[in-house]
């Protein structure tokens, strides 16, 4: 079976763990328990007749004083960059995360999750400008989470 390593990267508390929990276990928790180090979750899926397994790396978020260890980046086929739509600083740091990752993984694919969309009002959502490979997601309300992962999976596999 084909196995692919994909990462979730971004600032702390943007919802990386929650997106994975929603995608893999279809659950959500309102409380915040920060991730330290890394935890791998496995998810099998069938894409256009190909069965494969995603190894989803939930990596600790970057904080003002701790950056993400680069040793986690090796061998990744793709990454989901996550920001919190309500914290502009997490949107601003996306580019830095993307550039560092792509520098170490030239071939890798990526998508972006603008998470916690449930906290935005409709006019706020309309005002938001999203890049082409970005999704407005909510781990809480389960919106766009499946699409986020399968879009990346397709890019990585097909």
């Amino acid at each position, binding site marked *: 079976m084909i196995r692919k390593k994909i990462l979730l990267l971004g600032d*702390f508390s943007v919802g990386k763990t929650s997106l994975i929990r929603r995608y893999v276990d279809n659950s959500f928790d309102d409380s915040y328990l*920060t991730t330290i180090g890394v935890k791998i979750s*496995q998810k099998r899926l069938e894409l256009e007749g190909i069965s494969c397994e995603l190894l989803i790396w939930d990596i600790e978020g970057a904080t003002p004083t701790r950056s993400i260890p680069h040793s986690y980046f*090796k061998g990744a086929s793709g990454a989901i960059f996550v920001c919190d739509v309500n*914290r502009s600083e997490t949107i601003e740091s996306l580019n830095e995360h993307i550039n560092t990752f792509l520098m170490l993984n030239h071939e890798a694919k990526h998508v972006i999750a603008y998470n916690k969309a449930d906290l935005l009002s409709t006019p706020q959502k309309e005002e938001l400008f999203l890049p082409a490979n970005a999704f407005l997601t909510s781990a809480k309300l389960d919106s766009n989470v499946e699409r986020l992962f399968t879009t990346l999976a397709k890019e990585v596999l097909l």
Partner: protein
Amino acid sequence: MRTLQVILNTILSKNIFEYLLVDRALRVTSASYGIEKYLGSMPQEGDDVLDYLPELVGSEEEVKTIFLKKFCLYSLESVYKNDYYVNITVEYCDENTAIILLHNITANTLSKQKVLQYSNESTLLYSTLQKVVDNQNALLFVTNSEKIEFANKKFMHYFGAETIEQVRKKELNLYQNLDKKLKNYDELFELTNDKEEHIRIGSDTFIVQATLIESIYKLFTLTKVTTLSNEAMRDSLTGAYRKSYFNSKFEMMVAESTMCVLVVMDLDDFKQVNDHYGHQVGDRVLQEFARLIEKNIRKGDMFVRWGGEEFLLVLQHTSLADAKVKVERIRQKIASYVFPEVGHLTASFGMVALQDEEDADSIFFRADKALYQAKATGKNCIVVKED
């Protein structure tokens, strides 16, 4: 070889390291018993190691280089496995075997996690508070030793600074912008503690208020007033201008030597009204008194509540003689008016004209002297000071 086995067994019994032996195809050849707690089940000979350590997916080739180079830089830190945290490293054993070591770092990682949790939560709280603070009015924190400790975004924006260092460098000493001459923030604090004072900086007017925070910080709040709200300008009881508003206006008039007459007036024996009829009646008398005066002055004249039963009147662009005629009319109106519940009351007046080059302190001093004289010479009269 036997001693090596003893050493290895000792290390393994300490519950710190567990291992898996793999062949060149990364198939399991052997494993320590304790490894089951990390992997969830016991790997069997011939199993694919990736089924137990999916962490290695993507790094297979790198791990395999160990059979060529006899060493490998592969290492992965703080991996969560089945309620434990481990570091994973790969070592060379022989040309057909590599050893994958799992180093238990759970206790250490959990305490680090606690610190990280605390720090992340504080950062979130701090950044939320920062946003709240930046959206307030302009704020300035000054320490007891007169050091500017903090200014929020709005404050910096008003005064064209980007960083707190720039605020400090600019020597933007708020206290120098008041009409009263103040020497430091301590004095500004005394003046504005739980009170409002108007302050002019450039062409802008601000209301300044001070609060003491934890007895070491003085917090100054500046509210920009482009067009003053009625509330900010007017005394709530009488509707006359507030002292703080008057101060900033009068300072301007003095600076520009505007031709004007200052009248200081005081209701005679008002204390007895309060004592005899109570404060509620006293308040109504003040309202009536203010209404009488407002009815008898021009729009451009400024009527101010100075404190208690003391009021000011500034009559612009008028001579002292003309002003006196007008004030005399007001005096008579008051003396003949029947105040509800209280009956007849009188008022005393001191008046002076602003002289060339005269400052605010001086004109107030002269006006006060005139009022004092009016009170001393039997009340219900006007005293005009020519010099």
